[in-house]
C-alpha cells in the first residue's frame, strides 16, 4: 500500500515535470472569463468546391467577424481617416465601386484598375486583377498602402486603432475592447487585424441568387429565356467562367486593346512574356450589379461586353497579340460567335446571378462607421 502511494506521488511529480516542459511560446489561453469568443461554423453551399482559405489557422467567431466588419468600413484605415474598404466596395453594388470605372481614393486620387467585387473570397486562389497576392490575410495592406487608394501605412493604422475610442468621433468605436472580445487580448497587432478582416470576408458568401434556387431544384426560378441563356453560356462562356463560382481562377488575355497606361496585367507580377495583357478571369456572380466592367471599367453595360467578345462590328474589337487567349481564336475571325438573340439570352441569364439577399444582408452592412461616395 505504501508503495502504491509512493507510485502515485511519483506520477504526480512526473505530471508536474511534463507540465513544466510545455512550450512557453504556445498561444497563451485568454484569461478565464465568463464568456469567450463564440465560435461560428462556416457554411459552404453544397455545389461549391472546398474553400481555399485555411480556417484552422483562423477559426471564425462572432466577435472576430464583428471586428472585421467594423474594420472593413472604418475610414481609420486610410491616411485621411475617410476612405474605408467599404468606400470602394459598396454592398448595394455587390461590394464594388458602383459607377466608377477606376476607384477614387484619398484626396480624390484615381487608381488604375476597376474595384473588384468582394464576394466568395473563401474560394479565391489569388487576389487582385493580376493575382499578385495569394493569401487573403495579405490582401488588406495592398489598398491600405497604395498611395492613390488609402495612402496609409499599416503600422500607422495599428497605432491609430490603439488610440480609440477617439473623443469627438461621430461614432465611438473602442477597438482595444473589440480586439479583446475577439482574440482574448487588448493587444492590437497587424496579424490580428488581418485575421479579423479575413473572418468577415469569409462570411461574405453569395449563393442565394435566383440561379442558386434553380440549382437547388426550383425549375421555375428561371424563365425560358434565362434557361436558354444558361445553355448558350455553358457552350460559349463556361470554359473560362467555370464552376458555380463562374471563374477558373486563371489569367487570360481577352483581346482588350491595351489602355492608355499600357497596363500589362499579370506580367507585372511574373515578368513572364507569356503573361502580357493577361488579367484574372472574374467571377460573374452579381455581374448585373457591378458595372462598369473589365479591369479598367471600360465597358458600361453587359451588351458592350458581349459585343466585344462577339467581335461582329466592321472594325475589330479584339486586339490581336501573341498572348491572345486560344479560345478566342477558334474561328476565321477572333472572338466568340454570338447572334443578337444569344447575346440577349446570355444577359438575361447573367442577371439571374444577382443576389438580392447578399446585397441587403444586414450582417454585411456598414455598422455606421463608413464613408461612401
Amino acid at each position: 500500500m505504501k508503495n502504491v502511494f509512493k507510485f502515485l506521488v511519483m506520477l504526480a511529480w512526473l505530471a508536474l515535470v511534463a507540465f513544466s516542459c510545455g512550450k512557453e511560446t504556445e498561444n497563451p489561453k485568454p484569461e478565464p472569463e465568463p464568456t469567450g469568443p463564440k465560435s461560428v461554423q462556416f457554411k459552404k453551399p453544397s455545389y461549391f468546391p472546398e474553400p481555399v482559405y485555411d480556417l484552422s489557422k483562423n477559426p471564425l467567431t462572432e466577435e472576430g467577424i464583428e471586428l472585421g466588419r467594423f474594420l472593413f468600413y472604418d475610414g481609420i484605415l486610410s491616411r485621411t481617416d475617410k476612405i474605408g474598404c467599404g468606400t470602394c466596395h459598396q454592398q448595394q453594388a455587390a461590394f464594388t465601386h458602383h459607377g466608377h470605372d477606376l476607384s477614387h481614393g484619398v484626396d480624390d486620387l484615381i487608381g488604375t484598375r476597376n474595384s473588384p467585387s468582394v464576394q466568395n473570397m473563401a474560394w479565391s486562389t489569388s487576389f487582385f486583377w493580376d493575382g499578385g497576392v495569394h493569401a487573403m490575410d495579405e490582401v488588406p495592406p495592398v489598398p491600405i498602402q497604395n498611395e492613390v487608394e488609402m495612402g496609409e501605412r499599416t503600422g500607422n493604422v495599428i497605432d491609430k486603432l490603439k488610440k480609440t475610442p477617439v473623443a469627438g468621433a461621430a461614432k465611438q468605436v473602442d477597438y482595444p475592447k473589440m480586439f479583446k472580445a475577439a482574440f482574448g487580448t487588448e493587444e492590437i497587432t497587424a496579424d490580428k487585424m488581418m485575421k479579423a478582416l479575413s473572418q468577415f470576408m469569409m462570411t461574405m458568401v453569395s449563393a442565394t441568387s435566383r440561379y442558386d434556387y434553380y440549382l437547388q431544384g426550383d425549375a421555375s426560378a428561371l424563365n425560358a429565356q434565362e434557361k436558354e441563356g444558361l445553355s448558350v453560356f455553358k457552350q460559349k462562356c463556361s470554359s473560362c467562367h467555370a464552376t458555380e463560382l463562374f471563374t477558373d481562377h486563371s489569367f487570360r488575355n481577352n483581346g482588350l486593346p491595351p489602355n492608355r497606361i499600357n497596363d500589362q496585367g499579370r506580367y507585372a507580377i511574373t515578368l513572364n512574356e507569356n503573361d502580357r495583357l493577361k488579367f484574372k478571369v472574374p467571377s460573374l456572380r452579381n455581374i448585373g450589379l457591378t458595372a462598369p466592367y473589365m479591369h479598367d471599367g471600360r465597358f458600361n453595360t453587359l451588351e458592350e461586353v458581349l459585343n466585344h467578345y462577339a467581335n461582329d462590328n466592321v472594325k475589330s474589337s479584339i486586339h490581336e497579340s501573341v498572348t491572345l487567349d486560344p479560345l478566342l481564336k477558334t474561328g476565321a475571325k477572333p472572338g466568340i460567335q454570338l447572334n443578337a438573340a444569344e447575346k440577349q439570352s446570355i444577359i438575361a441569364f447573367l442577371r439571374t446571378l444577382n443576389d438580392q439577399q447578399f446585397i441587403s444582408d444586414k450582417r454585411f452592412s456598414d455598422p455606421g462607421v463608413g464613408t461612401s461616395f
Partner: protein
Amino acid sequence: MKKYSSVSVAITFLALALFQLSCSNDDEPTVESGSMLVHFDNMVGNEDLVLNSGNYINVAGEDFTVTRLNYYVSNIRLTKADGSSFTVPKDSSYFLIREGNVPSQTVRINDIPVGNYTGIEYVIGVDSLKSIDEPENRKGILDIYTGPTNEETMYWNWNPGYIFLKFEGKSEVSTTANGKYEYHIGGFGGRTEKTLNNIKTVKLSFGNQTAAVSTTTSPQVYIKADILKIFGGPTQLSIAKNPGVMFMPFSANIAANYANMFSVKEVQAN
C-alpha cells in the same frame, strides 16, 4: 505486490529521466564560443557617404545625392582556411543595414565556435524560404506589415516579397517630375511560378588577416560598401536613362552591380 511496485517505481524514474533529458536545452554550447562584430561602412569611392548633403558623381558622369540607402544582409557564414565554416543559425541571421541608422550598420554575431576565421559569406536580400514564411514568423526588420519603421518599409505587398536594396536620391539629370531617382531591387524567384531572382551571395576573404574568435576576444570586421559600384559594374547604370528601377527585368543588372560593391577594409583583433 511489492515487486510490481518497485518495477513501477523504476519505470517512473526512467520516464522522469527521459523527460528531464528532453527538457534540457539542446543549444547548450558543447564547444567554447565567442562573438564577432561586422561593421558595414557605406562609402562613395573613398569618401564616407553622407545622406542628403553629399554631392557625388557616378560612373556615367552624372551628379547625384543619396537620400536613402537600405539593404538586407542575411544567411551569414564564417569560413576558415581549411574550408570548414560556421553558419549563423537562421533565426539570428537577418539584418537590415540602414545608412540613416548608425546602430543598424553593426551586425553582432554571437555563439561562434572559437577559432580563426578567414572570410565571410552572406546574402544581400532575403532568401526564398523566409520570403514565403507565415507572416507571424517574420517580425522585427522582416515584418511584412509595418517594416522596420513605417517610413522605411522594405516590402512589396502588391507582389509579396522583400525589397533587398533600396537606394534613392536626387540628380540634375533625372527625368522624373521631382528630380528623384529610385532603385528598389528585389525578387526572390517567385512563389507559384518562377520569376525574377535577384538573390546575390557575397563571398569575401579577409586576405592575409584573420579574425580570431575566442571566449575573451571579439574581432571586428569592417566591410566597405562602395555605392559607386551600384552604377558601374557589368552594366553601367545611368540615372538619366533609368531614373526608376523596381520589379522589372532591368533590375537584374543593378543586382549584378551591387553584388560586387563589398570589400573587406580591415579586421581588428578586438
